């Protein structure tokens, strides 16, 4: 397994495919199609050169750090092809409000599309890209990040569309920022660039989930290397076990998708998927989701629950399957994977633990659940 240097590496075009696949894995079923992000990053790298990705420790404590992401409806994004100009303009708007130019770009969400957007922006701006993000996975709302757990405010937040029209939001709390931004984004065309949680280097070091861009690459590379050898799951699990945070992991179920229930409520894709065991014992795993997979259960026995990751993968290729990509008859393996410890504190669980998604059960770590099973 080739590993990227912990002291920093250039995000060259040849890393993008694996990085996108790893980002899809970390999306845990959601996060939007990383393909668009990968294509945007590819175009930016071809035009401006490869950005340099560094650990947060390489950033000065006083250095202003800005997040870079796209926000909106996935269906609209595939038509309007939200670009780095929009994200760049959102950052520029925040820089003006803060009165401090960016010294580094920080990914907000490593799962899905938004893993690769910061790569493109860092390439264009010629700024270092921090190897970290705010969740080490994907979540549906802006306030669901470790920055917020640490007391960093979502505001001021800037959203910008393709016309360069932007709004800066200063709201009373993070949830209010999310609500205001969501309304504005629809009005602005439902596919915009966003920058929020402006912070300094010291805060980024303290509150981010570290090493997640190289993690996304490592996951994607482990899957593609394993495919060539014919054992993508062995390769993937061996890699995850070598990481600092994601080392409690395993295949919790293997079977075939036999039931799908999908609906849209309050603007979210909600649903449940049932997987019938390959063992022939008739047992069924139920995975429920809200944009991302939230919980995997057999009967009333929970095997993995948010914020730990539940990932559904193609049983042969280990290609991550999104909630939209689920289909009856797919042969799948379902994995439970531990999230970073910072994601499991009480304050963190209040923001994005089971109850934040309306699940009436406490969080239990996947390592306890898998051992118990």
């Amino acid at each position, binding site marked *: 397994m080739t590993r990227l240097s912990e002291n920093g590496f250039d995000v060259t075009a040849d890393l993008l495919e694996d990085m996108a696949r790893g980002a899809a894995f970390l999306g845990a079923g959601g996060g939007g199609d990383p393909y668009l992000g990968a*294509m945007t990053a590819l175009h930016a790298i071809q035009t401006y050169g490869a950005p340099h990705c560094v650990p947060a420790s390489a950033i000065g404590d006083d250095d202003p750090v800005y997040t870079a992401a796209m926000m909106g409806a996935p269906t609209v994004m595939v038509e309007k092809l939200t670009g780095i100009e929009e994200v760049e303009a959102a950052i520029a708007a925040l820089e003006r409000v803060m009165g401090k130019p960016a010294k580094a770009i920080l990914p907000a969400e490593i799962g899905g599309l938004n893993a690769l957007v910061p790569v493109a922006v860092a390439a264009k701006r010629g700024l270092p890209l921090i190897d970290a993000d705010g969740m080490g996975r994907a979540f549906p709302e802006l306030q669901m990040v470790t920055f917020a757990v640490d007391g960093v405010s979502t505001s001021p937040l800037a959203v910008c569309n393709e016309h360069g029209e932007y709004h800066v939001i200063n709201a009373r709390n993070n949830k209010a920022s999310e609500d205001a931004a969501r309304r504005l984004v629809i009005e602005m065309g439902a596919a915009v660039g966003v920058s929020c949680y402006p912070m300094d280097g010291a805060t980024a070091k303290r509150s981010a989930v570290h090493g997640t861009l190289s993690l996304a690459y490592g996951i994607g590379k482990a899957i593609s290397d394993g495919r060539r050898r014919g054992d993508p799951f062995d390769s993937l699990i061996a890699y995850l076990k070598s990481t600092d945070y994601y080392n409690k992991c395993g295949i919790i179920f293997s079977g075939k998708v036999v039931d799908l229930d999908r609906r849209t409520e309050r603007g979210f894709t909600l649903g449940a998927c049932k997987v019938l065991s390959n063992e022939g014992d008739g047992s069924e795993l139920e995975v429920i989701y809200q944009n991302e997979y939230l919980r995997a259960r057999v009967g009333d026995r929970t095997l993995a629950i948010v914020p730990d990751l539940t990932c559904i993968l193609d049983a042969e290729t280990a290609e991550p399957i999104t909630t939209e990509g689920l289909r009856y008859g797919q042969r799948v393996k379902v994995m439970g994977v531990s999230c970073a410890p910072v994601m499991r504190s009480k304050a963190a669980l209040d923001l994005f633990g089971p109850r934040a998604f309306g699940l009436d059960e406490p969080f239990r770590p996947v390592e306890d659940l898998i051992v118990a099973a």
Partner: protein
Amino acid sequence: MRIGVDVGGTNTDAALMDGDAVVATTKTATTRDVSSGVVSAISAVLAEKGQSPASIDVVMIGTTHFTNAMVERRGLARVAVIRLCLPATRSLPPMIDWPADIAEIIGSDVYLAKGGYEFDGRKINDLDPDELRGIVADIKRKGVPNIAISSVFAPLNAEMEQRAAEIVREVYPEARVTLSYEIGRVGLLERENATIINAALADLAVDVVEAFRNALRELRISAPLYISQNDGTLMSAEMVERYPVLTFASGPTNSMRGAAFLSKAKDAIVVDIGGTTTDVGVLVGGFPRQASSRVEIGGVRTNFRMPDVLSIGVGGGSLISDKDGVKVGPKSVGYRLTEEALVFGGKTLTASDIVVAAGAVEMGDPSLVRDLDPSLVEAARALINQKVNEAIDRVKTSAAKAPVILVGGGAVLVTGDLPAASEVIRPEHSSVANAIGAAIAQVGGEIDKVYDFNALGREAALDIARGEARDRAIEAGADPSTIAIVHVEEIPLAYLPGAVRVNVKAVGDLLATKAQRMKGAAAE
């Protein structure tokens, strides 16, 4: 009477039909010039029952010619691309994700211009006719007469693409224009890719349609010519000259439609076993279930409506090996079966040899496989069956058993029970199911748009969608009195309350065939 022809990579099949009756069928080799293979197939079915060319009311042809041209990078033209979008989409210009070998053929004459719509119908920007005139003049100066035009959210509103086409006609009258709204659905890069492919096929389309017309002229058939598209409905030959890309995947669709017709089953699983692969698909209401994922053609991502077909490497020519346990395929002797298989005096053990040795089928010379190890024969026979059964199980839409229709030349490979099937149907004429699928095809219209259910109300919005699909079917030549809505799908959009993507498909009988049928009835 009608003739259906399927021009495949290996075989050209034809079926002569009178109403719902199959009068004659044939299988001939596909020829390099396309035309002579079509002539010999049609001559064969006419000769079989001594029919005259004048008795033919309509000819329907299904062809994989354009798909193969794309895959083999053959006969493709240079294309200029205009996208109406600015200031949106600048980060991802057209053809950003194309393989280098094909991008080189197509060229890099790409232009972004002001225009495009929002998801709710507002304009991103007004179209600027002067800007477009300048672009088209530049394309004309470069001498690239095949032009692809796309616009953001064109499936919602085609006005800007149509206006741009008018400007092209005015500045560069000899140019051939493809508009994205007529080709694909929501998903700009994929729809635009398909539009560019279509423009690249424009010259070839004229040649191929001309070859078909020449074949009919040579046969003295003056009946109208229709060609199958990927959803199993028909397009006029004139339409194919303009939209060849819409014929992609018509092969598996025709085979499934033919299977539905021959078996009278509307909801079933179709297993089409050929020389190299077994294609398994699902019929819902007599039409193939469509794939929901993106489809790559020759390495280019598109979002066509393609039948959701699972292909496994099991066919009549599949190689059988017994190193480390018995294996079937995926390698195959393909069309060389009649030279290489043991029963035909060849030296290669194939799936066909196994079923002959097992006594399930008569083919070639059975004495040539008499000495095969019986345990190998039984293990391989069981494995073939098991693989087909697993494929059926994978495509099923529910846990319940479903009827299975076996078609294609390799259908004889299935020799045992299929536990996933409630019943196994082996219809007559099943080896030319695809030609029959072409002969029975109807014409259709489809729309795929986003509607605001909050503003319009769900019922009203669906009514509008149904009406538009009907209008498109009539435009395509359907008899209004026979039009039925065969598919309505509603997909609510995440993060956009009230916005629902609606896909509606309407189909009806070809007005021409109905007129001819009535004429026939009157004569009687």
